[in-house]
C-alpha cells in the first residue's frame, strides 16, 4: 500500500472504462455547441443533467442486477416506474403537503415489485428475463386499472422541487448524484458490495466462500425496483403527471447506459461514474443530432452506431489492460 503506483494519473485514467462514456458525452456536447458557436451551453448542460438524472438512477439499478452475472437483468423497470408514479400521484391527489406520503407509496411499490420479481425467479426458478418481463405486464395492467385515464397533477410543492434547481444544478441531478455516491460506497466499501461482486464473478465459488448468495440476489432485485420506483416518482413530478407510457424509453436506456458506462455485461464488475457519463451522453447525442436537423430514422441509426463504437472502444481498452 505504501508503494503507490507511480504511473501518471492521466495514463491510468485512460485505462478506466468509464472515461470513454465521459469523453463521448463531452464530444457530443462540443458538437452541439459548435453549431451554435457556444451559445446556449448552460441551457444544454442543464437539460442534460435533468434528463440524464432519470436515466442514471434506473441505470445504476440495472447495473447492480447486471453485476449479478449472466442472465440477470430487470426488464420490469418501465412498468415499475409507471406503477409507482401512478399510485403515488393517486394517493397524493394533488393535495399540498403530501409529497412525503407519495414518496413512501412509490418506494413501497418498488419494494413490493422487487420482492415479487425475486419470488418468481427464486421460487419458480424462472430465468430473470422471462420473470421480469412477464411480471411487468401485471404491473402495467395494475397501473392501467388504477389510473383509468386520469391525469393527476403532482402537488405544487413537489412539482416545483422536481423542476427546480439548487446551486445552479437541477434538483433531480442532486438526487441522482447522492444516489450515485451511495451506490459507489456500497459497491466499493461495503461487505454487501463485495458479496455482490463475488456472486457476479462466480456464483458457485462465492457460495462456497461463504457468501449468502440468495440474500444478495434478493436484495439486488429489490434495490433495482426501488430505484426504478424513485425514478418514476421523480419523472412524474417533473413532467406534471404520470402517463402509462412514461417508462417506455427507459427499458433500453437502462441497459445501454450500463454497457456504455463500462460495466461488464458478464457480471462481477460495475462502474458508477460510467453510468452517469453514459446517461449524459445518451441525452446529448440525441440533442446533437436534432440540432443538426437529422430526421428520426437517421437519428436512431446514428445513435445505434455510436453506441456500438463506444462499447468496442471501451472493451478493447479493457482487454489490453
Amino acid at each position: 500500500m505504501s508503494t503507490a503506483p507511480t504511473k501518471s494519473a492521466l495514463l491510468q485514467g485512460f485505462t478506466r472504462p468509464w472515461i470513454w462514456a465521459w469523453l463521448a458525452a463531452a464530444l457530443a456536447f462540443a458538437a452541439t455547441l459548435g453549431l451554435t458557436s457556444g451559445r446556449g451551453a448552460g441551457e444544454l448542460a442543464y437539460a442534460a443533467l435533468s434528463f440524464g438524472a432519470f436515466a442514471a438512477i434506473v441505470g445504476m439499478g440495472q447495473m447492480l442486477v447486471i453485476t449479478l452475472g449472466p442472465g440477470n437483468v430487470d426488464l420490469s423497470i418501465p412498468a415499475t416506474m409507471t406503477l409507482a408514479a401512478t399510485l403515488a400521484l393517486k394517493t397524493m391527489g394533488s393535495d399540498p403537503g403530501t409529497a412525503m406520503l407519495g414518496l413512501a407509496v412509490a418506494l413501497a411499490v418498488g419494494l413490493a415489485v422487487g420482492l415479487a420479481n425475486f419470488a418468481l425467479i427464486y421460487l419458480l426458478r424462472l430465468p430473470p428475463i422471462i420473470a421480469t418481463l412477464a411480471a411487468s405486464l401485471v404491473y402495467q395492467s395494475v397501473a392501467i386499472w388504477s389510473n383509468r385515464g386520469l391525469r393527476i397533477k403532482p402537488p405544487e410543492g413537489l412539482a416545483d422541487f422536481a423542476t427546480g434547481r439548487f446551486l445552479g444544478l437541477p434538483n433531480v441531478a442532486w438526487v441522482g448524484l447522492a444516489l450515485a455516491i451511495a451506490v459507489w460506497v456500497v459497491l466499493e466499501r461495503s461487505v454487501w458490495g463485495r458479496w455482490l461482486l463475488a456472486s457476479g464473478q462466480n456464483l458457485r465459488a462465492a457460495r462456497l466462500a461463504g457468501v449468502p448468495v440468495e440474500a444478495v440476489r434478493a436484495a439486488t432485485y429489490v434495490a433495482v425496483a426501488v430505484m426504478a420506483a424513485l425514478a418514476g416518482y421523480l419523472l412524474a413530478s417533473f413532467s406534471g403527471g404520470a402517463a402509462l407510457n412514461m417508462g417506455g424509453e427507459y427499458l433500453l436506456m437502462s441497459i445501454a447506459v450500463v454497457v456504455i458506462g463500462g460495466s461488464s455485461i458478464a457480471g462481477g464488475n460495475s462502474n458508477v461514474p460510467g453510468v452517469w457519463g453514459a446517461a449524459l451522453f445518451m441525452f446529448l447525442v440525441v440533442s446533437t443530432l436534432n440540432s443538426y436537423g437529422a430526421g428520426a430514422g437517421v437519428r436512431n441509426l446514428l445513435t445505434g452506431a455510436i453506441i456500438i463504437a463506444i462499447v468496442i472502444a471501451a472493451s478493447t481498452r479493457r482487454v489490453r489492460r
Partner: protein
Amino acid sequence: MSEHETAPIVALTDAARHFGPVRALDGVSLSVAPGDCLGLVGHNGAGKSTLVNLINGTFGPSGGQVAFPQGSEGVRSVFQELSLCPNLTVAENLRIPHPGLKRPGWRRIARAEIRASLDAVFPGHGIDADSEVDTLSIAERQMVEIAIGFAPRGGAARLVILDEPTSALDAGIAEQLLAHIRRFCEGGGAVIFISHMLGEVFSVASRIIVLKDGRIVAEREAAGFTRQGLVDAMGHVAAETGGTAAPARGTADEIVIRTAEGLVARRGEIVGLSGLAGHGQAAALARLFLSQTSDWRAGRAPRAVFVAGDRPRDGVLPLWSILRNISISVLRRDAWRGLVNREAERRVAEDWRRRIGIRTDNLDNPLLSLSGGNQQKVLFARALASDAPLVVMDDPMRGVDVGTKQDVYAMIRTEAAAGRTFLWYSTETEEVCQCDRVFVFRNHAISAELTGADITEEKILEASFEMQEAS
C-alpha cells in the same frame, strides 16, 4: 496374409504424454493384436485415461510412438462419461460417428443398424431406436453407447476401448456385455477393457496390464495374477510415509459433525475421504458444507469453510486481486457497520501471504497472474484465515508441487492441533495416509472406516474395489 492377421492393431513404443511438469504417461510400450482382450487396471491418476486418449487420437504423444500398422479405421472408444446427445434419438446418435449416413433416408438405415447392434450385445434390451436419449435411464444410455461402439458404422469394429463400461449396468446386463466381448475377441476383434471391478477384468481379459504413475508396473496373462497380487501391484505409494503420520489426536472427543451416511468427525481431527474418484465423496463434501452454511445468512463466525480443488469452478473469483480473493470469507468478521475494514483486510492477507508463502510482491496483482499452485495457496489462505471450526477440503492439492504439499500438510496438522476439524477428500492415497480417520467410499456409500494404524494403502484399495470374495 497370416502376417496381416497377427500384426498388431495398435502398437505403442515408449509412448509418453506430459502435461507441463506432470508426467501423465511416462514411457509405455504395449501392443494389441486381433483376438486380444487387454484388461487395464490402476488407480486414479495412474494414466489410464491418458493412454486411451493417445490411442483414440485425442492428443498425440509427447514422446515415443503410437502406430496403427493396418490403419486406424475401426478403432473405437466408449467412455465412462456418457457422450451421447441427449436431445437426439438413439438412431440419430449413431449418425454422429457414422461416415456413411449422409443421404436422405439415413434414419431408416441408422435404425436398423443400431437395433442390430443392440440385439447382438444386449439380447432382450427393450430399447426403442426412436426414443430420445434423455428419456432413457443411465444404464440404457450406457448400453446405447456400447452398442454404437460395436456397430459396423460403414466398416467393422476392430478395436473397442471400453472405459468403465459396467459402472452403470447391473450384474445381468454386465454379464451380457462380458459374453459379447468374449465372442467379439474370438471372432478376431480386440478390446481394451478398463474397470475397477476386478472380478470382471479376470472373467474377460486374456492379458492384464497394471498402470501406476504413468508406467506399466506389471503385465501378465490373466491367469498369472491373483486378486491380491493385482491389488498389491497397484498400490504401495505411501509405504514409506505411513509411519510419519503420527496421529495428532485432538484434545477432546467432542463430535463436531455426524451425517446420515455415517460420516463422523471429532474436534481437532483430520478426517479423510477416500475411494475411487466419482464414488460420491465430492458430492458428500459439498452437501455437508452447504448444510453447515446458509444461502441467506452469513454470520460473523461461519461454521465451516471450503477449500476447492476444482479452482475455476468452485474457488477462483477471476476478476479480483489476490487480496480480495483471500479476504472474501472474513469480511463479515472484521466489518464495521457493514463496511469493509480495509486495514484489517490487508493485515490478514499479508499475514497469510507470509505464512503460506504466496509468491507475489504485491497482493493487488490479479489472482490469475499467479501459477495454479499459488492460486491454490490463496484458496487455502482464504479458508484458514477464518475462525471456522470445520474446514472442508475437496481434493485441494491438484497442481500443487511437492514442497508446498509438505508445507500445507504441516499447516493442517498445526491447525488441527489447535482444535480445528478437517474433512479432506483426496484422490491421492499419500494424502489420505496423513489423516487420523479415513472413510472409504464406494458407489456413493461408505464401505469402510479406518483409523490409526489401519490406514494403509492396501486396506483403502481393498475397500475401494468390489471384492466379490471375502478377503
